[in-house]
């Protein structure tokens, strides 16, 4: 086991799969020779060469369209959309083409590809480069949606995404890229659709994703240490497939549930999770499920404004305490 950063774990996961499977190819803007704007593909161009690791023009439609056509005809492309905000520039491919092709063709065609993209706030890039759009992807039938919160998961889930026969949108969180943790050295693959229970407690269940996971954990520690509240923290890891078993079991056990979402409030993933929990664990709930989200606003650029609107450790603590009356 080595300490790897999230960013290096991404390239390690890709390299692992490219070594294993010649069908795996990679394309994106500045992804090849330059190693990616976020340095998440460093070394791949040198290792696998220009036929497998390709720079593209600024053509998001062509990037996803080409990846789709290649996936339909035997390759396993990994397409990089530099910032997740730019998924809006090729949303037709995500929502209408890639996600629906297996269905529309009655299973004649499959589109086994991965769309990797840098998601989330924290870099003070402003409203068009900081969004969390995992809920956009969750809303589209036919997609799998993955958003790891740490380096080990990044490697293992990315490998799984590449092997998966369905299209996967893989959200790499910009503010986590420098975070390091122990990452297994050899072949490492995690299953898609399994949430991780990072901490168990009896008073509350906090459900989080990606960059909200370390915040939820930190909040849970403080809640335990300073406020006598013991909380379970669940890292969803995948929005589709959704590990409702884990969610429901821990929600029912504590009866008090909180979602911590970076996406703007309306129709966030937490809304879906809430609707499932209240429908299927209604009688176990001791109080309303509380959603802690970025407000329904575009993101400001200035650092103190950005910090103020994204759910913080302090806000999680405050909202849990308020709900539990402690």
């Amino acid at each position, binding site marked *: 086991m080595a300490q790897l950063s999230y960013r290096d774990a991404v390239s390690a996961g890709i390299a692992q799969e490219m070594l294993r499977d010649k069908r795996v*190819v990679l394309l994106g803007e500045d992804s090849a020779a330059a190693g990616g704007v976020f340095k998440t593909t460093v070394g791949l161009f040198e290792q696998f060469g220009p*036929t497998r690791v*390709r720079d*593209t*023009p600024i*053509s*998001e*439609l*062509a990037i*996803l*369209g*080409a*990846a*789709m*056509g*290649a*996936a*339909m*005809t*035997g*390759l396993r*492309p990994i397409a990089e959309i530099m910032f997740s905000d730019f998924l809006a520039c090729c949303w*037709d*491919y995500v929502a*209408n*083409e890639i996600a629906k*092709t*297996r*269905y*529309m*063709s*009655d*299973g*004649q*065609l*499959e589109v*086994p590809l991965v769309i990797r993209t840098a998601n989330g706030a924290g870099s003070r890039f402003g409203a068009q480069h900081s969004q969390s759009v995992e809920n956009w992807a969750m809303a589209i*039938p*036919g997609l*799998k949606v993955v958003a790891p919160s740490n380096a080990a998961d990044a490697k293992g889930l990315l490998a799984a995404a590449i092997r*998966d*026969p*369905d299209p996967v949108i893989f959200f790499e969180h910009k503010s986590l890229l420098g975070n390091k943790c122990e990452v297994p050295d050899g072949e490492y693959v995690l299953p898609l*659709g399994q949430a991780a229970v990072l901490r168990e407690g009896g008073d509350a269940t906090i459900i989080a994703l990606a960059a909200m996971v370390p915040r939820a954990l930190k909040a849970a520690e403080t809640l335990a240490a300073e406020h006598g509240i013991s909380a379970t923290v669940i890292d969803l890891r995948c929005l*589709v*497939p*959704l*590990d*409702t*078993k884990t969610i429901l079991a821990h929600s029912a056990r504590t009866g008090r549930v909180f979602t911590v979402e970076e996406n703007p409030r309306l129709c966030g993933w937490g809304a879906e999770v809430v609707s*499932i929990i209240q429908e299927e664990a209604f009688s176990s709930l001791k109080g309303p499920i509380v959603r802690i989200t970025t407000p329904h606003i575009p993101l400001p650029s200035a650092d103190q404004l950005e910090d103020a609107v994204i759910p913080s450790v302090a806000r999680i603590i405050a909202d849990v305490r308020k709900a539990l009356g402690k």
Partner: protein
Amino acid sequence: MSTTRIPEATRLALYRQMMEIRYCEKRAYDLFLQNLVKGTSHLALGQEAVAAGFGVAMNKDDYTFCTYRGHHHTLARGASMLSVLGELMGRQCGLMKGKGGSMHLTSVEHGVMGSYAIVGAHLPVAAGAAWSAQYRGTKQVATAFFGDGATNIGAFHEALNLACVWKLPVVFVCENNGYMEYTPIGSVTAVEHPAADRAASYGLPRILIDGNDADVVYQTACDAFDKARAGGGPSLIECLTYRHSGHSRADPGKYRPKGEVEEWMKKDPVVSYRVRLLEAGVAEVTLDEIDAAAMATLDEATEQAKASPLPEIASAYTDVFADGGAAWRN
């Protein structure tokens, strides 16, 4: 252009293909009128020569990418009339058992890699299939068919540029039938020939042909495929043609200036090709036999499709994911 070097057998294949499309599209129309086709449908009556010319020129393992107006190209790759009409009618015998419908005809076993109902969306996809063929070293060529209207959408531009930069074995075929739905293409396009006049933007030669002449289309297709297979990269081909019917089922085509349809009817690709073959010495009975065989196949397909069961409701919940189902949760 001299067309005499096309062998007679090939020309008869072109003729047969056009006749089959012509009959089948007319039948599709009759089936609408009988309310046996429920959704929309976009007929290619008048555009048969493009489909026949390219279809006959393709190798069996080449890829075709169509639009919603894709019946002709699907048939031209060898998909059966039964499977096409069955899909239009939403029957179990349909290519996608009613899940896709007229606008999404797909027959992977015949190289028809889908019909795309978002204008222009399949051009990058075809480029991607060509990239895959190039990478796998298979000498396959991908062809994307699209309308004049599609040349004004961003995906056209991005696909052409990428395909040229990567020298992909892909052929982009614009069927210029003069209209985007109800609006004349000239009124919304900055150049006269929406595809040909833009070839230079991608470093490509300008190719503008009579899309109603099956020989010309066939020969042009062969040249483009040869170039692609030899590693010469993409071609962009504008075929001048005309659709005889409205844009879709719902459209009576009233926006057309008086006499326009009549003018184009004189250039009917099927009728004129028959005349040409007769002039070239093909026996009338040979053509009559082709016609009769096509009609016989069609009649049988029609009856079979009508008799085919409706798909089971449960099929609506299949094939969302690779496990065959639609489960998004455990």
